[in-house]
């Protein structure tokens, strides 16, 4: 028998929160209203949604959540998160840009870093031109929700011809004592012939509650620009991360992105690259190490719209415990995109009987003169290799460690920032 009184769902709560808070949020209310309308139509995805069937966000959102973005943590707890010593550091706590904790003194010429709120207040024309132009609210409910409800985040602009030598490190830190949903948002615009290295890390400190972070980053890579982008996802076991990244690349640009998922209860990455002109080069690398009951889901889209572009994608995972990892890689080669080279590879090691890996490459090719390939493998650690190492005196445990490191190294070695590579290597060592 159905109960007559139904407690309000998370969807209702989000909508009512939006109505009460929207007048206090930055920017264009019309944009937010439209986004909310789109969220209303799409709703929280459940198992009937093809794109979310392995990642049951609806179950994660069954509990009580509120929407506070208050600063909770002590400053000294944030400091250790700045693992790159020589970098411009942006701290975003619970979705709010915290200037006082960031290290943004002496920015070089051509580099602007400020909060989204400040970008709106100062009527930045670059911001106005690009903000919310790429991640389509109709394509995904979490894009819609972020666009409607975001309170803040960072705006980074690298001006034409500027080469920013030091990496820019955006640290998203979640701190909460009550279950919270936040919607951090970033806009990164790298102008013509400019170069930048950007790291986004997702961390938790001093937190005792569940945080559902619906984070969204849009990146514009203008013609001839070179951007090296990293995501380090290392939230705690109460962290839920819904992470959308939308990239648009222009003529002859080079964009490399690397996603390292090291922990977190649930991590869903929606990474979309649009190759919107000719002679573009794109690299997508990913490594996920999952254990216990973790759910990690990487959905990537590479959209080849114009001829003569190259994309190369490599995602690798090591799955342990009862964890579930999903890889869904779509490659579109549009009718105009002749002479496209698009390659994709997903390799997994399943360490436990109870772990699950879902892997699904999807190629949709509408041009006829292209080179595309995809491959996917899932296996155990190779018994012959373990024996070979043991026959040389290594214990079974260190043989396995060595093999897991070797497996991960193919992705780790794509990191071009040495200090970051060392940091990740150490993290991986501690995981195994």
């Amino acid at each position: 028998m159905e109960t007559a009184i139904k407690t309000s769902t998370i969807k209702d709560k989000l909508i009512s929160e939006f109505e009460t808070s929207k007048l206090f949020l930055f920017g264009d209310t019309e944009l937010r209203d439209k986004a909310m309308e789109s969220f209303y139509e799409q709703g929280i995805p459940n198992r009937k949604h093809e794109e979310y069937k392995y990642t049951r966000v609806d179950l994660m959102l069954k509990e009580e959540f509120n929407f506070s973005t208050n600063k909770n943590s002590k400053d000294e707890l944030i400091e250790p998160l700045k693992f790159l010593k020589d970098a411009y550091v942006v701290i975003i706590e619970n979705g709010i840009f915290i200037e006082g904790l960031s290290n943004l003194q002496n920015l070089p010429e051509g580099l602007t870093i400020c909060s989204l709120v400040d970008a709106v207040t100062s009527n930045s024309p670059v911001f106005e031109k690009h903000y919310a132009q790429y991640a389509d609210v109709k394509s995904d409910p979490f894009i819609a929700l972020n666009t409607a409800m975001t309170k803040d985040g960072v705006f980074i602009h690298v001006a034409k011809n500027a080469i920013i030598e030091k990496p820019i490190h955006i640290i998203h830190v979640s701190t909460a004592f009550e279950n919270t949903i936040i919607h951090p948002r970033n806009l990164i615009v790298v102008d013509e012939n400019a170069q930048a290295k950007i790291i986004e890390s997702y961390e938790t400190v001093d937190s005792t509650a569940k945080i559902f972070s619906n984070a969204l980053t849009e990146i514009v890579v203008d013609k001839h620009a070179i951007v090296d982008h990293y995501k380090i996802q290392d939230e705690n076991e109460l962290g839920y991360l819904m992470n959308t990244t939308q990239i648009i690349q222009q003529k002859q640009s080079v964009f490399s992105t690397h996603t390292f998922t090291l922990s977190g209860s649930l991590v869903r990455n929606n990474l979309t690259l649009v190759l919107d002109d000719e002679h573009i080069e794109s690299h997508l690398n990913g490594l996920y190490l999952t254990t216990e009951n973790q759910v990690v889901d990487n959905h990537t889209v590479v959209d080849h719209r114009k001829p003569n572009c190259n994309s190369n994608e490599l995602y690798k995972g090591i799955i342990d415990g009862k964890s579930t990892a999903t890889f869904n890689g779509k490659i579109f080669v549009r009718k105009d995109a002749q002479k496209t080279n698009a390659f994709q590879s997903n390799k997994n090691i399943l360490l436990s009987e109870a772990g699950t890996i879902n892997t699904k490459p999807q190629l949709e090719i509408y041009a006829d003169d292209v080179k595309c390939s995809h491959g996917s493998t899932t296996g155990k650690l190779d018994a012959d290799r373990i024996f070979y190492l043991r026959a040389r005196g290594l214990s079974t445990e260190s043989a396995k460690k060595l093999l897991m490191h070797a497996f991960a190294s193919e992705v780790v070695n794509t990191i071009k920032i040495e200090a970051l590579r060392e940091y990740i290597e150490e993290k991986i060592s501690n995981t195994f």
Partner: protein
Amino acid sequence: MLSIKNLHTSIDGKEILRGINLEIKEGEVHAIMGPNGSGKSTLAAVLAGRSEHEVTEGEVIYNGKNLLDLEAEDRAREGVFLAFQYPIEIPGVSNVNFLKTAINEIRAYKGLEPMKAKDFLMMLKEKQNLVELDVKLANRSVNEGFSGGEKKRNEIFQMAMLDPKLSILDETDSGLDIDALRIVANGVNKLKSKEKATIIITHYQRLLDYIIPDFVHILHKGKIVKSGAKELALELEEKGYDFIKEEVEA
């Protein structure tokens, strides 16, 4: 050093070794020859500790210890070395890193401190010269993209680095051209000493022109059917394995 008594093994219920008896003393080189399927590689695998092989009867005593009770890694740490017939490729693990890990785990087992980086590098250079191994190969991933000959040379290089007491060379000569065979044999000869012993498993006599055995044993259907001095290998080469089969089955 090594005493094998009445060793019987089976794999997936199929009997392979049917009562091997063999005594090996320090300083000796033993060649084990035999036709395909006679159990040569099984013997090597069992001594090295491959767990798929079930020992159904018999014992193996190595320097006073029951070898069959030891894990594969502990056998290696006690000084048993198997040069694989088919060396395994391990992408992403550099030869150097692998050897450093192996040497330090062996040292830890013996209660020794890890080797100093400088000493390790010196040893690396010295042993590379011994087997004429290209420096580039030493820095590459273990056996990945190596030619057959390079893989075999890499096995002897590892043997030189780990300095085992008992070396088992499982068809190390197969797939080697005469130049590579000389280099490998030369390396093995330089590593020989009064305290060490070597078992050479081979199908052909040629390697034994370069590494002179003290004893030659002929394995047939899981048993040593004939033992003798190095001349036995020549006789075998001349008459072929059929002569053994006829002799045994007569």
